[in-house]
């Protein structure tokens, strides 16, 4: 966490207002105590009551069926994003965080088009681009309402699908488009911390993608196409070790910051044949990186930290709700719960 402190940290006074507000909002983030209390409650209803008892009125669930719970959580996520746009002095953070939803929508629309489905699709209406514009672009070929860059991604993805008949590769191509967009914008913003964060995210993603390719039995030659290029870790290194036995993987990263993540993740993968631990380690690593936001008074670290902390909270709540609903044991839930920000 302390690695990314440099002379430009804590100098952006225009974030003073945002940080002041966030300092107060941080009180309403989940802490370990609340999470443990929630896990230890007998059933779903009681564990949701713990939220209300701790003044977290934001999480009010009227009905307990999965779609209305999901709706509540999606709404909180929406509010979180809106808060970012409200408090930050420049719109770029909001845009950065919104691209994710845009690209999700593009994926869903493209998949629907390719398989000729006409039902209601699970879309998010919180992207940078209007849903109508995307709809027109994907289904009718009218690209007036969307940027040229996005048009290129859509075209590429469509061509890729027609060539290989694989939705997987189509999505991979859109995912790469997502990171291209992000890093293009990061160049414009030119903030060290954002670069650092997104590069770390890409590195960790590349690691997990390599593992997933292994599970999906994708050939080594295709890996170069799938990996995302913007990270600090060289993708060539990952391609080189791809065919090596699993237990030797972590040796190649002994000097890297991600050694702990890789070592434990791979170990768990070999022992339990599951990537859950790896996923959890990655989430925790990123969250830990963001914790610097708690200590900055003037800087976007604070805003970014809060945004992701809230998303992390939603993830934890989802884990608890899903776990309680399917009556997983407390120990099981505790094993897979993510770290907390505060």
């Amino acid at each position: 966490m302390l690695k990314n402190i440099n002379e430009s940290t804590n100098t952006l006074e225009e974030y003073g207002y945002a940080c002041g507000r966030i300092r107060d909002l941080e009180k309403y983030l989940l802490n370990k105590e609340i999470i443990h209390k929630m896990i230890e409650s007998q059933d779903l209803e009681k564990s949701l009551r713990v939220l209300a008892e701790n003044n977290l009125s934001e999480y009010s669930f009227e009905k307990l069926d999965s779609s209305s719970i999901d709706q509540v959580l999606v709404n909180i996520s929406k509010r979180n994003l809106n808060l970012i746009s409200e408090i930050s002095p420049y719109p770029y953070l909001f845009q950065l965080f919104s691209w994710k939803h845009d690209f999700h929508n593009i994926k869903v629309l493209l998949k629907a088009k390719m398989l000729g489905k006409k039902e209601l699709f699970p879309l998010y209406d919180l992207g940078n681009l209007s849903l109508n514009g995307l709809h027109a672009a994907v289904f009718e070929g009218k690209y007036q309402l969307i940027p040229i860059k996005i048009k290129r991604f859509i075209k590429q993805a469509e061509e890729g699908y027609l060539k290989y008949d694989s939705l997987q590769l189509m999505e991979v191509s859109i995912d790469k488009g997502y990171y291209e967009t992000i890093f293009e914008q990061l160049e414009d913003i030119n903030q060290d911390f954002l670069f650092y964060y997104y590069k770390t995210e890409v590195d960790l993603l590349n690691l997990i993608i390599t593992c997933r390719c292994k599970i999906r039995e994708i050939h080594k030659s295709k890996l170069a196409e799938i990996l995302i290029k913007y990270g600090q870790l060289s993708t060539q290194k990952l391609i080189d070790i791809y065919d090596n036995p699993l237990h030797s993987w972590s040796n190649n990263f002994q000097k890297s910051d991600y050694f702990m993540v890789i070592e434990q993740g791979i170990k768990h993968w070999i022992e339990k044949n599951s990537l859950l631990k790896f996923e959890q380690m990655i989430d925790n690593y990123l969250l830990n990186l963001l914790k610097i936001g708690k200590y900055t008074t003037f800087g976007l670290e604070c805003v970014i930290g809060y945004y992701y902390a809230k998303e992390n909270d939603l993830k934890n709540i989802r884990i608890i709700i899903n776990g309680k609903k399917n009556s997983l044991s407390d120990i099981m839930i505790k094993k897979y719960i993510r770290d907390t920000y505060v």
Partner: protein
Amino acid sequence: MILAVNPNRMELLKLKRRLELANRGYKLLKDKRDALIQKFIKLVYENKRVREEFDRKIRERTNEFLLATICMGENDLNSIFMFPQRLTKVKTEYSNIMSVKVPKYQITEKGNLFTYGMIDTSPELDNSLKKYQEIAPLMIKMAELDKAIVLLTEEIEKTRRRVNALEYVMIPNLEDTIKFITMKLDEMARSSNSAIMRIKEMIRGE
């Protein structure tokens, strides 16, 4: 029960032949029944084994799937699973167990299993989905065994009824009738004997 036949030698001969046939059929059917039951028991045991394996595996897989999707919302899940590219086909063939036609199913799967990208989806989902592949063949196997057991049960029932009919109705009836005819014939022979003796007596007396 004595069959409604004329008690003469002709009928006796016929009945004796029928009895012999019935006995032979009885033995054959009994053998068939025993063999069927043996087969049936084997199938039941196999069914039990497969079912237990299925139970265990489906529980494991469901748990794994649950854990894999534990932090994903309904929306995200829908956007992954609404668009499948995998096609599963089942082909039926028939095989013969003791003249019972039993179906054999063959499963073929083609198309992409993974239809989603690698960001924003849980990595464990890949693992879980891949492991789920072993469930469908097990289910098909279970259906196959179930059907075979049902068909065999019907056949066993039928055979058993036939065996019983032979054992408790047909054969005793035939035996009774034969006994009756034999007795009748003996009676007739005796009565004609005594008549002859009396006639002889009468002739000697004159």
